C-alpha cells in the first residue's frame, strides 16, 4: 500500500486484550479455522501458545503476555513445518516473533500460505527466569516499564508492522487495527470492522518510539562492543557459559534437528584433550565454547530477529542476545538485509550477485 494505511479504531481500554472478542468473532464467522495465540497455562503461572478452535478457550487468552515463553515462530513452525494442511490460522504474536516466523518460512520451516499474521506494538517482556521464580508478576507490561529485558530495551522494531494486520496501541492511544495487505483487510472484515480511521497519530508515536530505541540501541550495543571486543574481553563475557547450548534450543531460528556443534562436542578424544592440557597447562571443559557461539553467529546471525529467547533460556546469565544483536546488526547491514522485514527478499546465503562485496572498505573478500 503506497498511501498511508487506514485503520479501525477500537473503543476499548484494554489495549491488546481488545483483540480477544474480535478474534472470537472471526472464528464464529468461519472465515478462519483457528487462532494461534498465548493462553494462560493451567498452573496460572505462565503462558503457552495454543491453536484455538473453540472460542470458549479464548477466555484464558492473553495476546500480549508480560513474558515470552515459546516464541510464536516456533509455535507456528511446530504446526506447519510439514505444511499448513489448509487450516486457515489467525496467528497473533509480537513483531519479533512474527519476524521469526517469516524467517522460518524462508527456511521451509513455516508454511504461511494460510496464515494471517497479526502483530501488535510490543512494550517488551520481563526476563523469563525472574517471572518463573515469581519475583516479578506484572499483570501487564507498559511502554515505560523499567523491568523489561535488556534486549527489549534496545528493540527498535518493537512496533514493526510486519504482520498482515497490526494493532497499534499505547499510552494515550486508542487501539487501532491496521490492515497491511489484502489478507489483513479480509481478517479485519471478518472481525466486523472497517479500516476507516486515520493512523497518523499512531505513526507519529511509533516513529518517535523507534527513533528513541534506535539511539539507545546504538549506544548500549556500542558500549557492549567496546567491553567485549577482542579475544580476552570476549572470553570474559562468555566466562559463565557452561556450554549447555540452551540458547540455541530456545532460538526460533535454529531449526536443525541436531545442532552441528552438539555433534561436535564429542569430537576431541581424551588423548587430544590431554595433549592440549599439557601444552597449555590446563584446559577448561567442555571445550569449544567460542567455536559454538561464533559458529552459531555464522549460521544464523543473518536471520537473527533479536527476540531474546536465547538470553531468557540461558541458565548462566550470559548476555547472549545482546552479543548476537551486536553482531547481527553488523552482518545484516553488510548484506543489506534485515531479518523478517521483507517476505520477498531471499536469505543472503542462498543467493548472490555476480558483482558484489567489493570496494568500499577495500578488499574484504
Amino acid at each position: 500500500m503506497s498511501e498511508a494505511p487506514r485503520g479501525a479504531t477500537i473503543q476499548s481500554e484494554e489495549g491488546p486484550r481488545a483483540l480477544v472478542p474480535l478474534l472470537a468473532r472471526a472464528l464464529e464467522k468461519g472465515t478462519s479455522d483457528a487462532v494461534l495465540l498465548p493462553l494462560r497455562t493451567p498452573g496460572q503461572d505462565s503462558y503457552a501458545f495454543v491453536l484455538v478452535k473453540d472460542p470458549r478457550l479464548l477466555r484464558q487468552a492473553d495476546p500480549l503476555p508480560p513474558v515470552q515463553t515459546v516464541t510464536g515462530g516456533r509455535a507456528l513452525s511446530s504446526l506447519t513445518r510439514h505444511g499448513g494442511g489448509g487450516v486457515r490460522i489467525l496467528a497473533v504474536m509480537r513483531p519479533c516473533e512474527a519476524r521469526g516466523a517469516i524467517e522460518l518460512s524462508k527456511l521451509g520451516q513455516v508454511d504461511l500460505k494460510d496464515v494471517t499474521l497479526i502483530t501488535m506494538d510490543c512494550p517488551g517482556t520481563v526476563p523469563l527466569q525472574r517471572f518463573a521464580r515469581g519475583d516479578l508478576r506484572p499483570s501487564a507490561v507498559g511502554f515505560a516499564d523499567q523491568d523489561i529485558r535488556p534486549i527489549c530495551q534496545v528493540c527498535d522494531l518493537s512496533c514493526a508492522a510486519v504482520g498482515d494486520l497490526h494493532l497499534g496501541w499505547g499510552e494515550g492511544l486508542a487501539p487501532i487495527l491496521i490492515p497491511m495487505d489484502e489478507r489483513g483487510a479480509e481478517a479485519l472484515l471478518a472481525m466486523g470492522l472497517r479500516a476507516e480511521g486515520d493512523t497518523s497519530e499512531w505513526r507519529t508515536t511509533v516513529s518517535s518510539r523507534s527513533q528513541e530505541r534506535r539511539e539507545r540501541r546504538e549506544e548500549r550495543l556500542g558500549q557492549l562492543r567496546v567491553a567485549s571486543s577482542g579475544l580476552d574481553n570476549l572470553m570474559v563475557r562468555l566466562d559463565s557459559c557452561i556450554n549447555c547450548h540452551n540458547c540455541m534450543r530456545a532460538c526460533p531460528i535454529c531449526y536443525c534437528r541436531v545442532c552441528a556443534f552438539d555433534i561436535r562436542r564429542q569430537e576431541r578424544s581424551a588423548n587430544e584433550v590431554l595433549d592440549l592440557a599439557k601444552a597449555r597447562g590446563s584446559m577448561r571443559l567442555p571445550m569449544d565454547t567460542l567455536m559454538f557461539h561464533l559458529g552459531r553467529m555464522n549460521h544464523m546471525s543473518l536471520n537473527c530477529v533479536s527476540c531474546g529467547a536465547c538470553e531468557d533460556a540461558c541458565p548462566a546469565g550470559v548476555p547472549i542476545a545482546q552479543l548476537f544483536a551486536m553482531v547481527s546488526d553488523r552482518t545484516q547491514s553488510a548484506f543489506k538485509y534485515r531479518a523478517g522485514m521483507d517476505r520477498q527478499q531471499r536469505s543472503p546465503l542462498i543467493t548472490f550477485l555476480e558483482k558484489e562485496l567489493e570496494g568500499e572498505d577495500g578488499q574484504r573478500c
Partner: protein
Amino acid sequence: MNARVGVYVCECGNNISDQVDIAALVPMLEGAPGVVKVMSHRLLCSKEGQEFLAEEVRKEGLTHLVVAACSPRQHLPTFMEVCKRGGLNPYLMQMANIREQCAWVTSDRHEATEKAARMIRAAIARVVRQAPLPEREVEANPDVIIIGGGLSGTVTASMLAGPERRVHVVDRNPALAVALTSLKGVETHGGCEVEAVRGFFGNFEVELASKGSRQEVRVGAMVVCTGSRAMTLQEMGYPGSEAPHVVVLPQDPESLRPYLDALPSGQPKVMFVHCAGRERVGYCSGVCCLRSFKAMRWMAETAPNAQLSCLHQDICVPGRDGEREYQGILGIGARMTWGRLTALAQQGPQVTVSFRREDGSIGQDAADLVILVPATVPNHGARALIDIIGVEAGPAGFVEEAHPMLEPVSTSVKGIYVAGSASGPRDGRATSLLSLAAAAQIAAELRPGKTLRLEAQTSQVCEALCTGCRNCMTVCTYGAIEYDLVAQTCRVNETICRGCGNCVAACPSEAISVKGATYQQILQEIKEAVR
C-alpha cells in the same frame, strides 16, 4: 577391522629427494595411527614402481594407501589403477602432493621436509576416514534428440545417426528440410515443441507436444540447435524505421531484388547500415560485416549503376577471407562512412539517415534504399526452451557454454549440448564446426552399448537430520537435489551430482555430506596443518 596404512614416498628421480630429506622424513611418519609401513622409492609412477606398489598392497595386506609424490592432478588416475591391480578400492588411496606444492616451492631443505611430513600426515588422517566407494555406472540410452532442424541440427543429426543410434529432430516448423527427412536413422518431429524434460544424462525423458497430441521420447542426450535470427526493425527501435524504403538485410540477397527493381533509374543511392541494433543487444554479432559485404558485391553485380555506401562502426571481418572481401568492396567504390545510426526518416522518395560521428557530432545522408544489417539474436522460443530444459542462459538469452574454451558445446546440464548459433552469433562455418564438435563429443561420451561412469564422490543426505529447508537445493547448480514430498526431506540424485560440496556448506544441520570430503576428513587435515 583395524586400518593398515602403507605410506610410500616417491623420490621422483631427484625431483623430490633434492629438496626433501627422505631419510629424515620416513622416521617422522612411522608410528602415525594405523601406519604399518613407510617406505621410499625412486620413481613410483614408472612401470617398475607401479608393479612394486601393487605388490606391496597385496603383500602387506594394506587397507589404505598413501602415495606421497607429485600432484594428484597428474598421477591420481595412475595410482588409482595401481590400487585396483593390488586389489584395493581406488578411493582408499590418497596422494600427498610433496613435489609441486612442497619440494619445488620451498628453498629451505629442513622446512620442506617438515612441510612434507605435515602433508603426508594429513593424507594419512584423511585416508583412514575414507570409505570404499563403488565405481558407479549407469545404463545409457545412446539415442539423441536434436532441438531445431536448421543447419546445425542437420549437421549434428547426419553425423550421429546410424544403425546403433536413433536421432530425433524436433522443430516448431512442420515442414522440415528434405536433407533431414531423408536421413537414415533420423526420426523427425515437425511442428512439435519440447514441453518438459525429466531425467539426466544417459536417460532423459523428453515430452513433445504438437497441436493436440503429445508424445514422449527417451534419449540419452540432447542438443540445442535452436539457432539464431536477425533482429527485427521493431526490436531495433530506430525512430522512423517504418519508412517504406528501409529494409533489413535478408539471409539471401536475392530477396532484395524487388527493392532493386523499384529503385529510381539513374544512379540510385543504396546505403548499407551496419551494427543495426548493436547498442540494444550489447554485443557485436561478429558475422554481419562479411554478410553485408557479400550482399554489396552481389548488388554491385546485379545493379551496377547503383551508388553503394556503407555506414559502419568497426569493421569486423575475422578469418582467412574477410580482408579480401573488405578490399573487394573498397575496390568497387563503395563509400565508407563511420557513424552510429540514430534515426531514419522518409523524405519524399528518399530516406534521410541520421548518425552520430566519432566526435559526437550528428551527420546526415540520404539514400533511395537503406538496408539495415541486423544484429543476431536468439531464435524465437529459445528463452522458453532454456527454462524448460534448465540450462544456463547468458544475458543476451543465448545458451551459455559450460566453458567458452574447454567445453564449448557443453551446457551447465550434463548431457545437454549446444551447437551452432544457439550459443551465440555464428557464421555457417562456425555453425558446422560446433555441430560437428557436439556430434563428436556425444559420440565419445555416449557410446552405444557402453555404460556411463558416474562421479563416485557424491553428496548424500542423512534423512534423520534433514529438516527440509532446501538450502542445498537452492545452491546446487545441477539440480541434483530433489525434495521428497512424502518424507519431507531432501535427497541427492547421485547420477547428476558432481561432488563439488556446495550443498554441504549450505546445510547448517550437517545433514548432507560429500563422500571423500567429509567434515571429519577436512578437520583431520586442518589438525595436521596446524600441528
